[in-house]
């Protein structure tokens, strides 16, 4: 009798849950009714066509294979491979996200170091933070004029807050003793910031960055549904308009997979900067 490790048992259970879930899903999809004798009128109006319905997992798998075997084809504005669509989304997310990081982390440092800056900026942050990022969209479209840049702006504005607040919180919470160590070693402001405060606050800052990338990936789908053209969000909406539910289900899964990959990148970074006191 051999025993399995905790991870092996968990993996086994995951596979069982997946298989059972897929079987239940497959079984729950009603079979298409057999088509009887059709009148000429029914044939002309497409009555013999299978009705649109939620696809079975086997159909989704076929679709996934078809799409993933050629992810980068480009057959015109409304027919691009899943790889291209996801690529556009990731490009927008990362652009908006890194612009946000460029603003949020230095500003968070300032707010964390200076109680005056904290108190002065806090009311603005508290009012701006709860605004749904999509609410900015009309204003962004009007002022920026370009739908692509507006989507990036929406990502920027939604990912800035967790990073800003966590950076400020992390920097303000750096232990006085560590700052005193820097002071007694005559480290200048620049060296203190990079050698002591940044590593001390890094776990909190990276947590903020991880929350932000999660929010940015949630928001990009909605933003692309609005602005259209390209991207995974547009793709979902376009396939809905085409009544191709198999593609819709497939792209929902892809959104999940990419979101998980983005998150695990930051999880890795988080493990790298975490320290034990």
């Amino acid at each position, binding site marked *: 009798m051999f025993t399995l490790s905790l991870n092996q048992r968990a993996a086994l259970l995951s596979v069982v849950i997946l298989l059972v879930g897929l079987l239940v899903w497959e079984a729950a999809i009603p079979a298409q009714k057999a088509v009887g004798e059709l009148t000429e009128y029914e044939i002309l109006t497409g009555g013999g066509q299978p009705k649109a319905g939620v696809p079975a997992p086997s159909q989704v798998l076929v679709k996934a294979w078809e799409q993933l075997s050629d992810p980068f084809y480009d057959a015109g504005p409304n027919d691009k491979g899943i790889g291209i669509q996801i690529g556009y989304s990731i490009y927008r997310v990362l652009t908006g996200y890194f612009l946000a990081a460029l603003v949020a982390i230095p500003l968070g440092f300032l707010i964390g170091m200076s109680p005056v800056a904290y108190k002065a900026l806090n009311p603005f942050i508290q009012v701006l933070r709860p605004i749904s990022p999509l609410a900015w969209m009309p204003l962004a479209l009007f002022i920026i004029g370009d739908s692509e840049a507006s989507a990036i702006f929406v990502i920027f504005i939604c990912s800035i807050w967790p990073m800003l607040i966590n950076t400020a919180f992390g920097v303000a919470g750096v232990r006085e003793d560590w700052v*005193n160590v820097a*002071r*007694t070693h005559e480290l200048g402001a620049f060296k203190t910031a990079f050698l002591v405060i940044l*590593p001390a606050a890094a776990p909190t800052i990276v947590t903020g960055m991880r929350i932000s990338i999660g929010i940015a990936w949630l928001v990009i789908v909605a933003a692309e549904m609005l602005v259209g053209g390209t991207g995974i969000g547009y793709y979902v909406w376009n396939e809905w308009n085409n009544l191709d539910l198999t593609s819709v289900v497939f792209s929902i899964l892809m959104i999940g997979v990419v979101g998980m990959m983005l998150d695990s990148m930051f999880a890795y970074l988080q493990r790298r900067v975490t320290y*034990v006191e």
Partner: protein
Amino acid sequence: MKPYLSIENLTQKFPDGAGGELTVFENATFGVEKGEFVVILGHSGCGKSTIMNILAGLADPTSGVVVMDGQEVKGPSLDRGVVFQNYSLLPWLSTLKNVSFGVAARHPEWTKAQVAEHSTKFLAMVGLEGDVIRRKPSQLSGGMRQRVSIARAFANHPKLLLLDEPFGALDALTRGTIQDELLKIWGQMEQTVFMITHDIDEAILLADRILLMTNGPQARVAESVEITIPRPRNRTEIVEHPNYYAIRNHLVQFLGKRSKELSGQPTEPGQSNKPTTVRIDKTDPQDDPEDKRPALRAVNS
């Protein structure tokens, strides 16, 4: 002539929260000579740590000055190394890096190899060698962490080394070992040390001179007790020295009774609170052996 480190009319007042002022200590005046090991003893709340922070340059006094080696102390400096009670190691750096970042700050012109070699040498002096120096502080015991902190301070060879209750958080056995190591390394380096402690035996073992503080508020440095036990000292041998219990009793008496009686006396303006020098020496032939009272001579300096 001024002593190497001269504390002149140091006063610290804090707002008491009710609109008034709380005087922690007033017109404290004392000196520390070069190479001297001075320990300050007193109850909690008498302002020992405040004095320490002022000497380190981490806090500013309400009035008064600290002069070291002819220069007024303003702000923290590499010339004054501090060993904090809670070690204050940077947890994201390895043991070696915790020491070498200080060495690199002290000697910016050194190469990386020189910095590493110097740091390794000082870690070895406190008994940390081999694999241990690549560990993070969280993987070390409390005693080892404090050793790292001591190595970091000595490696920088500051003009003045400040120790803020360095052994307060350690168990008695570890404390003993590290005290011995501290004595050894101090003997090699001729380092000027100013240390805070609560522990009377520790103070007698380590110090050339013990400053006694009265209870706060309005505390003052009341006495300066010379430790007339020759070096090198050893914890098992000093207890047999005729002066040991005489000095110890004097310190216990002070902390137990007189620190309370002497406290809270406001000083007149302009008067500086110099401590009374106390020298207890039973081996001194001048002392009358018939005298049954504790051999105690108070000398006003």
